[in-house]
């Protein structure tokens, strides 16, 4: 039998436990999440600790911004970009708005840094492959090798574009701009700007799988899962530090199967064919900017040339999942990534 004092302490402790357990119960999480079909993709907006009215206003502003950008930069639906492409192809000089100069110059610089592996001048080649359609049918064969060769031989690159103040002309009639994933990074960055203008400082904008996260989720950092390129599950996760973008390009995003072979939407400008060295490529970097261009270039480079892209584009954190499922990592990403598959994949850490 316990002595009276211990007895009282035991009772008090048990009571205190119950009371405090109740007190630290989870509040309903102040998370606001919306998924919308906009920007030609599924955009997932997550806001933390924002009151409902403000969240709705901020979300509406993001949707508006993305809708405008979608129209402004669409590579095949008739609009400003198809107009620019048509005029450049005719050898005309095109006067651009400041935002158009910003995007085109930005893409030009990225393209150069990537050694032209990210090459938004090959819109014609992408169209030839049938990827200038929301859903390319699977039973249509890939283009004839002769047709592909013709495009590759004309070698359109971003260096064919010449600025004179706000005027642009092209030295190569084969050049057709298609910014692909790069426009997605631009859109995500503009969406984050819009959220910040509305006073939101903890949020994630995920546009069809490519995202930028700012702030935190209360006491915890945002945790991002990176999809396994060959399965519905998650390959790895990272915790976001402050303001970071996470961009992945993969051969599973848009592809068609023809006679048992996979043809995906990322085209190697050197060969004219979808590269087959990698299944997915991920880059993580502070703030916004390079995302889509960098992950595209890494996919094209594959395990053989990926480090050259990492160096050229000054990437600190990159991951490449090769066709043999080996995972190539830069040391900075290896230090923070957490694999979610069992057994973990074979990892090769390479110093850029």
């Amino acid at each position: 039998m316990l002595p009276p004092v211990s007895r009282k302490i035991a009772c008090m402790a048990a009571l205190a436990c119950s009371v405090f357990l109740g007190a630290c119960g989870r509040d309903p999480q102040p998370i606001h999440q919306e998924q919308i079909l906009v920007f030609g993709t599924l955009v997932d907006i997550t806001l933390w600790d924002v009151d409902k009215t403000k969240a709705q206003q901020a979300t509406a502003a993001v949707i508006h911004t993305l809708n405008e950008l979608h129209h402004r930069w669409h590579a095949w639906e008739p609009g400003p970009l198809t107009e620019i492409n048509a005029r450049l192809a005719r050898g005309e000089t095109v006067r651009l708005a400041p935002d158009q100069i910003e995007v085109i110059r930005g893409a030009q610089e990225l393209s150069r840094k990537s050694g032209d592996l990210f090459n938004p001048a090959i819109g014609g080649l992408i169209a030839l492959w049938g990827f200038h359609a929301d859903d390319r049918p699977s039973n249509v064969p890939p283009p004839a090798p002769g047709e592909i060769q013709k495009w590759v031989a004309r070698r359109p690159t971003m260096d064919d574009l010449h600025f004179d103040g706000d005027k642009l002309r092209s030295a190569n009639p084969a050049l057709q701009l298609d910014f692909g994933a790069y426009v997605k990074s631009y859109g995500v960055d503009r969406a984050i700007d819009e959220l910040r203008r509305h006073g939101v400082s903890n949020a994630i904008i995920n546009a069809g799988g490519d995202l930028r996260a700012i702030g935190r989720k209360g006491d915890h950092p945002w945790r991002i899962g990176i999809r396994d390129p060959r399965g519905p599950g998650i390959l790895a996760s990272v915790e976001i530090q402050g303001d970071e973008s996470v961009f992945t390009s993969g051969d599973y995003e848009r592809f068609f199967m023809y006679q048992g072979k996979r043809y995906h939407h990322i085209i190697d400008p050197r060969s004219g064919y979808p590269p087959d060295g990698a299944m997915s490529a991920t880059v993580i970097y502070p703030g916004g900017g390079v995302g889509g261009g960098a992950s595209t270039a890494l996919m094209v480079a594959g395990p053989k040339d990926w480090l050259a892209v990492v160096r050229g584009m000054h990437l600190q954190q990159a991951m490449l999942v090769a066709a043999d499922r080996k995972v190539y990592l830069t040391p900075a990403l290896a230090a923070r990534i957490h694999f979610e598959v069992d057994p973990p994949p074979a990892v090769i850490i390479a110093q850029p």
Partner: protein
Amino acid sequence: MMTRADWIVLILTVALLPSLYMRYWGDEGPATSVRISASGQPDITLPLTGNRRFTVHGPLGDSVIEIRDGRVRFVSSPCRGQQCVHSGWLARAGELAACLPNGIMVSVLGRDRRYDSINF
């Protein structure tokens, strides 16, 4: 000596602990329900339990969605690209698949999300 009141307090608190624990810290499991959104229609939320198949109407035609063994997937869709079907089974909170041409999306909901967002 313990008085009767002491015993009652002690028994009550000990009895309360598990229920409080379950209420506040209990694990809800990986995923609890699935939300289906089709453009122009109100969202539908269904529990991710039982086995069933159903049809959702979109602008292109009917998409078939299946719930089985705590997972959900697109069985078929009238789109040409079939990306939604290629997405396969979704089982974890936060996972989603969409048929953009047919304007239908499926997302798995759950209170305890392991990931805040998924990169793909």
